[in-house]
């Protein structure tokens, strides 16, 4: 398992401590900011699309600094799948709820008029923003990234069968 930089000359290639530490420090702030933007997507022009993107980017940043494989282990596949799945479920759930209340798809107004929830429109939109969009965007960004990265994983990092097939496809091309 000799590393690529492992000659007799130098040390094995290690992650730069500066980048690693900077990412460690920034990560909590960006994650908080992403969630803030998501939660305030309904009443500020930020929108939860950006919020979800920031959450996804935070994970990407960790992946760049710590290496893809450790991050993949840290963030289980099931977590990402449930993020996207949950997002879609919330989106559809809110939509169907308004239909159940006798309106059309995503007619938030009904939360106020029928159920009497104050600011129903706002909360409906909030739910869509948080669940529907941010979770999906974040999940998709992370999934796409890991899927792309898996295509370039060299042989020594192979762990799962899916990765292996993707690997072979890429390498047999050249």
């Amino acid at each position: 398992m000799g590393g690529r930089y492992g000659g007799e000359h130098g040390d094995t290639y290690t992650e730069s401590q500066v980048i690693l530490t900077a990412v460690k420090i920034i990560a909590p702030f960006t994650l908080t900011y992403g969630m803030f933007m998501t939660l305030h997507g309904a009443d500020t022009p930020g929108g939860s699309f950006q919020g979800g993107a920031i959450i996804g980017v935070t994970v990407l940043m960790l992946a760049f600094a710590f290496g893809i494989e450790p991050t993949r282990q840290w963030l289980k596949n099931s977590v990402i799948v449930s993020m996207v799945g949950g997002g879609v479920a919330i989106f559809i759930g809110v939509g169907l709820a308004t239909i159940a209340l006798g309106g059309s798809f995503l007619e938030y107004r009904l939360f106020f008029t029928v159920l009497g929830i104050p600011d129903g429109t706002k909360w409906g939109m909030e739910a869509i923003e948080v669940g529907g969009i941010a979770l999906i965007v974040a999940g998709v960004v992370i999934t796409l990234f890991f899927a792309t990265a898996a295509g370039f994983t060299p042989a020594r990092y192979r762990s799962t069968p899916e990765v292996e097939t993707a690997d072979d496809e890429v390498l047999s091309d050249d």
Partner: protein
Amino acid sequence: MIDTLYVGAIVVLLALGVFFTFVSAMGVLRLPDVYARAHTASQTDTLGAGLALAAVALALGWQQASVYTVLLLFFVFITNPTAAHAIARSAAEMGIEPWSGADGDPSSDGGAVPDGGEPIDERSSEPGHERETTEGSHGGDPR
């Protein structure tokens, strides 16, 4: 009086920001190699951006938006040098030699840097690495 001072401070900050960004641009255009350019790119530019952002924060006054500006300022101050370090490090890992000033015209583009594309080619056609990858992939291949 206070108003004049206030506007004056903003003008000075903004002017200094523009000045340092100008220096940074000049540096990136004039300096001989990637390491030297990284100096102005990361630092002078950071200061220029910082001063301009400070002017914005001052102009916005005490409100939510200026909090964002200050955050932006902090963020730029942490990330810019880190990014410059990452770039310089990657240049070093690729084996790009710093311009040593021994020969060549400092204002020319290349300096003593060997042809830019060369290290990449060398790396990818490096026999040991290539073999390792291909062997690994075919070894695990059932065919």
